[in-house]
């Protein structure tokens, strides 16, 4: 299969243009907004940021018509541990994102768009700004795009170090200059989003897929994936495999193919023990479970986990699961925004209990205590960060209880 998103020598405007770039924008501007939304619905494109919400449906929630200010926001706040696909995409193919945003903005009637990029990606932000300036100079952005009468201004906005800003309403708060604390929903951003106006927020990878969908059609894109999840997906693979990196594969690809064919298997001497399939928040799978899996939204859900962001973390049998969960708990405790008590306190207590299990001060009751704290956090907060902590806790304990019991009995593994 030919890659759609990650292609060689497409980073510069001339190169992108030579490959047919910005022709889909011209085509889209000749269509009615409703026709574009229908095409994206037909493509079965699901949000690539983690939640997998159908993109066309999300766009259709925006009140139609030209009245009033609307916004399009790209979520480039890539921070889910194990995920690094958007960085790769921003470097290799920034114009697919810019073109996808121009098309999406036309479809929803937005005159302004922002790309919220995590603050640490300074080089990628500069690269993106240069690409935007190039697109603007050629009339693909700005006033009266390609003579259509449609205006769209696009700006890059750098965050400043807060995982929570990847949550879409926290991102909006941050973009407005506040602390990134998630908002209560409803109202949903489609009705009351950025600066109080209807807003669509999509991930980088989602928006970058749009030009190809307009070019080749929703049916073509849908046929690349499974019955319910269209297209290709970027998988970020980390851990001790021979070739870690970002792989673009059709949804529904076997996990074993990703590991063995694309990543070249495990490094010599390393044996796969566990897999976190969709970024650090998604429930862990044993190696045997993972090897039997297909990588798509439905298959992962049926296996009790999630495709999430497609951040596949491979864990070998030299790693201690208690230690790795401690690393994750330290992260979620650090990143909890603090506004909901179950999350703020729950993440803190989970980290403390794991610290004592790791350091040899644990008791057998600690394992059930961890589990019950995680259960008590689930579904009781404004956003999903508490669940993002609870899911690893519950799945690590369920799948690897023996390792936790060894620590509760006094095992210390150090580092």
């Amino acid at each position, binding site marked *: 299969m030919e890659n759609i998103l990650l292609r060689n020598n497409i980073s510069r405007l001339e190169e992108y243009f030579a490959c047919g770039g910005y022709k889909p924008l011209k085509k889209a501007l000749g269509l009615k907004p409703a026709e574009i939304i229908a095409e994206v619905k037909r493509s079965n494109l699901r949000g690539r940021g983690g939640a997998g919400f159908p993109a066309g449906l999300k766009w259709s929630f925006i009140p139609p018509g030209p009245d009033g*200010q609307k916004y399009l926001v790209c979520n480039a706040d*890539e*921070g*889910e*541990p*194990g*995920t*690094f696909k*958007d*960085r790769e995409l921003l*470097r290799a193919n920034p114009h697919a994102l810019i073109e996808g945003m121009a098309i999406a903005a036309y479809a929803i009637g937005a005159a302004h768009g922002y790309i919220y990029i*995590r*603050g*640490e*990606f*300074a*080089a*990628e932000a500069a*690269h993106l700004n240069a690409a935007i300036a190039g697109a603007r100079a050629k009339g693909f952005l700005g006033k009266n795009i390609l003579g259509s009468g449609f205006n769209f201004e696009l*700006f890059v*906005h*750098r*965050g*400043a*170090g*807060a*995982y929570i800003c990847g949550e879409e309403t926290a991102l909006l708060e*941050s*973009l*407005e*200059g*506040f*602390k*990134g604390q998630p908002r209560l929903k409803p109202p949903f951003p489609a009705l009351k989003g950025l*600066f109080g106006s209807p807003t669509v927020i999509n991930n980088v990878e989602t928006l970058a897929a749009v030009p190809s969908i307009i070019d080749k059609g929703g049916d073509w894109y849908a046929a690349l994936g499974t019955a319910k999840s269209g297209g290709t997906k970027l998988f*970020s*693979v*980390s*851990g*001790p495999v021979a070739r*870690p*990196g*970002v792989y673009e594969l059709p949804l529904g690809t076997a996990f074993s193919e990703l590991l063995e064919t694309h990543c070249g298997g495990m490094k010599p001497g390393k044996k796969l023990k566990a897999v*976190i399939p969709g970024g*650090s928040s998604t429930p862990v799978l044993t190696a045997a479970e993972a090897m039997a899996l297909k990588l798509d939204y439905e298959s992962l859900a049926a296996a009790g986990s999630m495709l999430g962001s497609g*951040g596949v*973390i491979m*864990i*070998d049998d030299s*790693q201690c699961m208690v*230690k*790795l969960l401690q*690393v*994750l708990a*330290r*992260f979620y405790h*650090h*990143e909890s*925004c603090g506004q909901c008590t179950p999350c703020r306190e729950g993440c803190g207590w989970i980290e403390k209990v794991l610290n004592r299990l790791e350091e040899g001060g644990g008791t057998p009751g600690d394992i059930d205590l961890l589990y019950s704290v995680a259960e008590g956090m689930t579904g009781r907060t404004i956003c999903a960060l508490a669940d993002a902590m609870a899911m690893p806790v519950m799945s690590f304990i369920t799948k690897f209880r023996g390792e936790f019991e060894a620590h509760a009995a006094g095992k210390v593994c150090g*580092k």
Partner: protein
Amino acid sequence: MPYKLTDEFKEAAARICARYPRRDAALIPLLHELQKSRGFVAEEAMDELAKFLELPYARVKAAVTFYTMFNRAPAGKYHIQVCRNISCHMAGAPDLLGRLRARLSLKEGETTADGLFTLSSVECLGACGSAPVIQVNEEYFEDMTLEKLDALLEEMKHGRLKPPAL
């Protein structure tokens, strides 16, 4: 010491504010600008920025303390940030951190007496495929090893920091 916003800053600020329908949305980009010029955001600078944006001081202070990238005290010329999250952890981040602590005689959050190095550990930098990763100021250094770290430290001691190609 009173802090004065430079004309250069005010010009950049006017350009940045124009991107948003409300000036206060420019708060975080403007804090980046302030940090760029001094390496940190001083209390007095927060006060001046609040006046400039016609915001309560608390709004500015809240942002500076919420977002981890803003330094509230002068950092070293080279701010070494070691990712400690799961993929980097498995790939040897604790060893990198240990080497830096030992060679610089620092704990996380501290700066060397000569003002050259600040050491921090940070959460996921979003480059897990090339773990372990460290960031020095705004540059990423990937697929790190103890040998590469020693060589990088040597370069920085001589005032050189060659950013890797994008």
